[in-house]
């Protein structure tokens, strides 16, 4: 039998999408699989020469689905550059907007993307293995899921005036206060959001119980884990120190984000534009770590909101109190974080200071020329680092996005799943769907700044050893 190379390639040369290459051997098994990201990091170069205070408006345009994370990380870097710590009310409002972002992004991912795979099955007919099929299977749940995302988007709108690319956070604070009316409007949606999320959590628990065999063989590997933490190592999504733990949950580092370059380095492979961050002291790839929901819930010791903490305690028992490492549990962790975000939104809305009018610090003290803004985006830790001239003009920009931190893990997940499920010579659609499901678990954001028709998110080509395409699969 001739060896085969299965290549997933973008149809166009325009950056922003990914390919998966699966290399088969003569025996019809997978030798290795790679997840190639063709992401061109143009924003970093594009921003050189701009003023740092423009960045909260520029960087959200990296993506039209998760712009708020960039908006806030950018503003936080600007706070430091300007030497203007935001007033308490501004911090509460920024965090509230961020909770809206978490709710909408996580809600959309579970119910509308991962949900069909889990609820309808990896091998279900592709015609129904989607959110439309889910509607048919459980219309009430699907409508609730759409409402959950809308609720998260509405928080962003109520706080920032726009759902996408808000003009809200500025260095030193924010540019609008919150009215009682808007606060009460958001409060009114919290109970239903919690209910919907709890339904989702029960779904994933039931699914996990019924599919433990798949969970234990689907992209299962150990890494370190990283995320922001409170001073007592609780879950923290807006601010705090960065905690890195090893595969056993033992703390390796707990550091100020300003020092991340002392802790994290980036490895380059010649088959991907996206670099591979790793923990310097352990080298690459041993120092690879995961971020995002599963990574975060392994990096923390507890959650400070009651409902999420109760779920966290159950979740951490999955692996006997040790870090949960099975890739499919990303979906479970994602919903626990959604619950936390809704509870945290309630805490923020109940804080009378959130209606304050002191929202912008105009007194500059100890400005800097280098600063890092950090935040936990839905997908994981996001760093924005800016170097400026004395006049505030950017000389250099470095962005480590969440998907970047997970780059090694996504490639490892694709390799693992391909080896487990892809059997030649006739590669079934369900096998390849599992490869994509491995990517979906990490919910990557792959340079969403262009979306012209004709750009495919992922395509799959099967090549034989002579370079001939024997099978083609694409997702439009």
């Amino acid at each position, binding site marked *: 039998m001739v060896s085969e190379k299965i290549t997933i390639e973008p*149809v*166009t040369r*325009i950056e922003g999408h990914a390919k998966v290459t699966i290399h088969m051997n003569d025996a019809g098994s997978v030798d290795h699989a790679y997840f190639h990201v063709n992401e061109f990091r*143009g*924003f970093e170069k*594009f921003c050189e020469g701009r003023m740092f205070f423009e960045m909260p*408006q*520029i960087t959200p*345009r990296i*993506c*039209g*689905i*998760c*712009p708020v994370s960039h908006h806030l990380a950018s503003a936080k870097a600007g706070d430091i550059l300007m030497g203007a710590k935001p007033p308490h009310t501004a911090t509460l409002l920024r965090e509230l907007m961020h909770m809206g972002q978490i709710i909408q*992004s996580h809600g*959309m*991912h579970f119910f*509308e*993307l991962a949900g069909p795979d889990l609820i309808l099955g990896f091998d279900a007919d*592709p*015609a129904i*293995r*989607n*959110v*439309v099929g889910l*509607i*048919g299977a459980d*219309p009430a749940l*699907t*409508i609730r899921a*759409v409402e959950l*995302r*809308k609720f998260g*988007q509405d928080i962003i709108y109520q706080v920032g005036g*726009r*759902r*996408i*690319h808000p*003009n809200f956070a500025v260095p030193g604070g924010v540019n609008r206060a919150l009215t009682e009316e808007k606060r009460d409007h958001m409060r009114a949606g919290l109970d239903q959001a919690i209910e919907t999320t709890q339904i989702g959590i029960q779904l994933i628990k039931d699914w996990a119980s019924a599919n433990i065999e798949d969970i234990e063989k689907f992209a299962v590997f150990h890494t370190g884990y990283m995320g922001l933490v409170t001073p007592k190592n609780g879950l923290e999504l807006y601010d705090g120190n960065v905690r890195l733990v090893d595969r056993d949950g033992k703390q390796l580092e707990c550091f100020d984000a300003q020092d991340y370059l002392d802790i994290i380095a980036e490895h380059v492979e010649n088959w991907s534009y996206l670099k591979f961050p790793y923990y310097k002291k352990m080298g690459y790839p041993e120092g690879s770590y995961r971020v995002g929901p599963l990574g975060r819930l392994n990096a923390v010791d507890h959650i400070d909101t009651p409902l999420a903490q109760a779920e966290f305690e159950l979740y951490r028992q999955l692996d006997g109190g040790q870090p949960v490492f099975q890739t499919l549990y990303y979906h479970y962790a994602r919903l626990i974080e959604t619950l936390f975000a809704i509870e945290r939104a309630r805490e923020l809305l109940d804080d009378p200071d959130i209606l304050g009018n002191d929202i912008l610090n105009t007194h500059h003290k100890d400005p800097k020329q280098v600063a890092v803004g950090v935040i936990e985006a839905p997908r994981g830790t996001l760093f924005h680092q800016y170097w400026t001239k004395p006049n505030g003009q950017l000389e250099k920009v470095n962005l480590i996005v969440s998907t970047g931190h997970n780059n090694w893990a996504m490639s490892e997940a694709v390799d693992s799943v391909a080896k487990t499920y892809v059997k030649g010579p006739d590669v079934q659609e369900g096998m390849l769907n599992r490869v*994509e*499901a491995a*990517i*979906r678990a990490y*919910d*990557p*954001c*792959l340079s*969403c*700044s*262009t*979306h*012209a*028709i*004709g*750009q495919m*998110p*992922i395509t799959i080509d099967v090549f034989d050893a002579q370079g001939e395409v024997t099978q083609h699969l694409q*997702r*439009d």
Partner: protein
Amino acid sequence: MQADTLIIGIGNADRQDDGVGWHIVKILAEKLGKTVPEDPGEIVEVETNLADMMFIQQIYPELAETLSHYRRACFVDAHTADVAEEISWLTLNPEYEKSPLTHHMSPRTVLSIGATIYDHMPETILVSVRGYHFQFERALSPQTETLAEKAINRLWDWINHK
């Protein structure tokens, strides 16, 4: 909003020809008497009852609910060389097109979601214009700008002929 027609420009106005949807929506709005801000926002409200307009970077699921309130809709976007015509004019039917990523949803998919949940979706067309350059700037390339003018003329007729 009172119009029965919705025009939705899609794309990133900071990525040159990827923002052709914004440029077209902007000019159509101005022809309908609305001055729009230079920085594209989410919704451009038009004061006539001919058409409502919006501009978004990417399609998202709750757009289905917005669409359910209209009789006609038009998506305006850029396309790459994989589409043969320089200006493509397509009638869209609801059809779910799956993606491995949450950040990628097509007009047909959002129509499919809407048709299932709301039992009504507008008669929908997709107008796309060939993009030649996708660099980091707001001005269209000369080739795409010329095509955009032709697309605007044809869309103007479509808006006015119910």
